[in-house]
């Protein structure tokens, strides 16, 4: 098996989150995967991901759909007999994978499109999110979305125009600064080098 070239392995980068050091206590019991709503459709269950992390399989882990399929329901976290913060680990894997182009997929694009809406308006904008995400990433599925979008509009449940917050410039400045600090912290932790 190839050793990681960089000093910090993916395992280290994941275990660096608060409580992440408990990852080494994983019993391989499978409670996480058995409790997971998306488990049956994941490439690997969380248990398998943890074994792969320990075995240094960086590429395979980051290519897996597992963490993108995490719905953030926290069943695994509350049920893990070793109190490993599994949901937070899935978030960290998304964060790491999203930082490297070769691991980004249209799952990443969904999150990014959502974030773009928030950064541009300060509020969510569902019509903009749906239009941009589906037309850019899944044009065929966009056709199937039309009746639903129409239903939302006729019931007054979807806005045609975004709402902007007043101090959008202030929010943008806050986020710009936060991202600058985030990249510095990432470098310190050896994440997203």
């Amino acid at each position, binding site marked *: 098996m190839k050793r990681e070239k960089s000093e910090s392995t993916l395992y280290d980068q994941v275990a660096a989150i608060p409580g992440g050091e408990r990852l080494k206590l994983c019993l391989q019991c499978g409670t996480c995967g058995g409790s997971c709503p998306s488990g049956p*459709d994941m490439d690997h269950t969380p248990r398998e991901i943890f074994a792969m992390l320990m075995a240094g399989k960086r590429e395979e882990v980051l290519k897996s759909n597992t963490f993108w399929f995490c719905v953030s329901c*926290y069943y695994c976290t509350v049920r893990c007999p070793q109190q490993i913060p599994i949901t937070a680990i899935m978030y960290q894997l998304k964060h790491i994978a999203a930082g490297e182009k070769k691991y980004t997929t249209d799952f990443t694009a969904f999150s990014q499109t959502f974030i773009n809406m*928030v950064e541009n308006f300060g*509020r969510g904008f569902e019509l903009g999110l749906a239009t941009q995400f589906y037309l850019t990433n899944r044009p065929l599925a966009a056709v199937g979305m039309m009746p639903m979008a129409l*239903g939302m509009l006729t019931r007054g449940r979807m806005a045609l125009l975004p709402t902007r*917050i007043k101090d959008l410039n202030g929010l943008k400045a*806050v986020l710009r600064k936060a991202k600058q600090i985030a990249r510095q*912290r990432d470098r310190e932790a050896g994440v997203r080098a």
Partner: protein
Amino acid sequence: MKYAYYPGCSLEKNAAAYGESFTAVADVLAQELVEIPDWNCCGATEYFSLDPLPAYALLARNLALVPKGLTDLVAPCSACYLNLYKTEHHMAERPQLNRDVNTALAEANLSYKPGTVHVRHALDILVKDVGCEAIAAHVKQPLRGLRLVPYYGCLVVRPGGLGSYDPEYPDALDRLLEALGATVVDFPLKAACCGGHMPQINPETAYGLIYELIASAASREADAIVTLCPMCQLNLDVYQAQANDHFGTHHSMPVLYFTQMMGLAFGLSPQAMGFGQEFVSAQPLLDKLASPPPPPEEEPKKKPQRSKKALPMPSLR
């Protein structure tokens, strides 16, 4: 009591029924809601997924904008609630995160000191601060005869230890619905996941989860699923037709907000409570409430007679 109110983006539009009914119900119960000025989106699960530090800063801006003198923030959306709660607690527990977030907030001349705002969910303030007895005292039209499924979803009850709810089998909403006079259906999937963002990521996964919840509620002859989260409502209501198509079923299960049910019981008009905005119509439920079936006559319980042909049974005496 007086609360800082964080409506969240969903309640502005797609969950307007939730927003309208929550504010109306709070008004009836004399709870004052002061909307946080110029609040911004909580980032849902998406911002935390890609970049946690800006996500914390985004959320902390809302905490920083809570008007002076208010200690409790109420958020009716589960995702908003959990994100704000996580931000407040993680800033208190992690000094470096606190410093980084405040450095970012300073760009807009804002700051937030952890521990100053208590983040709470709408259900929590209604059940704990107001209380089920006080709620029952406001009931003008009891929801008698309605079989309701209390559905909590994930984010309010889980992240274990974050709230005082059982992460697997909570009962706060059960008690509230009982106080309204409804028949509460014992629902094993009450804290199961609605699919979250899976309709966008991998629809088949979402349809499976939606189908299980709807079919399970239907098999218990429920009149509606009662929820406390805009995402759960959206997935179970708006995608119910797709889930039906996918599995070849014909379920028609209304999915309503608990505050809509409270409003009905308080005698407020269905229209003012946002009825009619749902995809799966709740009209059958409203009709049932308008003309409740006569209460079943209690038959005197007879001791079952053993057939004379039956084999003799051993007696304990």
